[in-house]
């Protein structure tokens, strides 16, 4: 039998259409209520969204995230290496660090750092167990709100990222380390050039979870009356009583930051998948260009 002249009829999926319609209806209903319910007060949201004080708060949030995220992951990397080292002392020090900072609430850590001046009036550098002091400083002048916030967020972040990075490093084949050692590549270079880039594939998805969590986690520093985004919004709505619209302003900004981070995540993960897959998949942008290119060609051929 020769079937070459028969046209192909695609299979039908009626339930797929029903499902799509139901979801579309739901989305539409939500959008409708957001747009038409006057209590959302979109006008107020728009008015405050780019207000100078809100933008300042946003910048503080970004600053806190960037500094504590960066320091947290660097410290976490060192803690992970300590945990994987052959020295029992380093291993237990690293373990204890993670244990302490993972078992105390961030809120408590934050308040503790801020009130360090109550526990220790002065911080000094000297020879332990003697009266020799090289310099001495009042604790309250050293630990500002900003310092307490960065300290709290960084140490907490380090404890979590240490485990994430350790997991990533462990996922790399032992043969890689052996090959590098056999080639005489120095230990630090072995970690940073051979193992870490390969570990990145396992580290990145969870690390971005952490950073996105940190963006919103910075809102906890409102307990220190530190004027980041969330605290700023609170101050405003306590004055104006427009609680929901202002919470919406903060929320929208958090959504924007997370979205931007997600785009970064996509491209960074793609960068580190070099060599792990035979051919890199196209980026959405490349896909779109390809789509339009082929369709433009198709249109042109059709018009001929």
């Amino acid at each position, binding site marked *: 039998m020769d079937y070459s002249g028969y046209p192909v009829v695609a299979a039908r999926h009626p339930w797929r259409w029903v499902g799509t319609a139901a979801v579309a209806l739901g989305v539409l209903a939500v959008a409708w209520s957001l747009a038409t319910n006057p209590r959302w007060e979109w006008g107020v949201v728009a008015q405050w969204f780019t207000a100078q004080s809100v933008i300042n708060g946003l910048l503080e949030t970004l600053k806190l995230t960037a500094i504590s995220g960066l320091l947290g992951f660097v410290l976490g990397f060192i803690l992970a290496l300590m945990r994987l080292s052959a020295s029992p002392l380093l291993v237990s020090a690293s373990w204890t660090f993670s244990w302490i900072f993972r078992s105390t609430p961030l809120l408590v850590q934050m308040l503790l750092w801020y009130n360090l001046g109550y526990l220790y009036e002065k911080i000094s550098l000297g020879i332990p167990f003697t009266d020799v002091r090289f310099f001495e400083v009042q604790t309250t002048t050293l630990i500002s709100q900003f310092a307490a916030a960065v300290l709290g967020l960084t140490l907490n972040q380090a404890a979590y990222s240490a485990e994430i990075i350790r997991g990533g490093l462990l996922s790399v*084949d032992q*043969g*890689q380390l*052996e*090959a*590098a*050692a*056999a*080639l*005489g*590549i*120095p*230990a630090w*270079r072995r970690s940073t*050039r*051979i193992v870490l*880039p*390969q570990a990145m594939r396992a580290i990145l998805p969870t690390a971005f979870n952490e950073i996105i969590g940190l963006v919103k986690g910075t809102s906890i520093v409102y307990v220190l009356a530190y004027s980041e985004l969330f605290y700023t919004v609170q101050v405003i709505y306590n004055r104006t009583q427009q609680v929901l619209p202002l919470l919406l302003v903060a929320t929208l900004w958090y959504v924007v930051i997370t979205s931007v981070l997600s785009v970064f995540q996509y491209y960074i993960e793609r960068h*580190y998948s*070099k*060599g*792990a*897959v*035979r051919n890199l998949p196209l980026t959405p942008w490349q896909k779109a260009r390809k789509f339009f290119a082929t369709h433009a060609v198709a249109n042109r051929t059709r018009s001929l």
Partner: protein
Amino acid sequence: MTVTAATATRGLVEITGVRKSFGAAEVLKGVSLTIEPGGVAVIVGPSGSGKSTLLRTINHLEKVDGGHISIDGTLVGYEVRGGRLHELREKDILKQRTEIGMVFQNFNLFPHLTALENVAEAPVVAQRPGKARPSKEEAKRRGLELLDRVGLKDRADAYPRQLSGGQQQRVAIARALALDPKILLFDEPTSALDPELVNEVLDVIRELATSGTTLIIVTHEMGFARDVADTVVFMDQGQIVEQGTPQEIFTNPQEPRTRSFFSKVLEPAFNI
């Protein structure tokens, strides 16, 4: 008895009474072996006989429990000071290893680096005795030469996963050569390869056998061993049972254990 390549002056390997245990199992029970500069020693034997472990003690990937290994008269992993053996610091061990290249069964190429980057990485960062580190450009130029030598110049920018097993192992050989080692260790270099890819790797090793570099090869390829070796070493249960020229070992083995092993692994046609 060993045959020495006429030009070789470096790469003398002396293994003396080496012992090694993993837990309760003693895998090397006092192994002694001398390989002359530029010699080609092929180690054969049943799996679990300690061949790979012996190979890995030579570049100190495994620390020995007893005995010692020296290369051109210098101890591996230790230093003699004041009548004692001082363990070397990692930095100095790494330095020693640059003179001993190693090729692994599973290639162990760095998958996130291209073929050329794999080859050019170590020379730029490793400290070598009596040699300056080349610049990146210099190392790349030399890397391309080496890839050319193993027939892969046109694949320099490919990542390991884009290469066949045989090509990957050839890149791994080029990578080991990049440090210009005195000695090359091959740990079952063709065991992970499809049968039709084995020869392209063996051909590269064959070419190296005449280059004056000392080669120590653990393999199950008996035909290749016979071709390329000047010493064949038969190991069983952590000991060297017998050693000699390929002729002696393959056609006229003295020990019953050797004979029984070869009767299982050699093709009847090969058993002249």
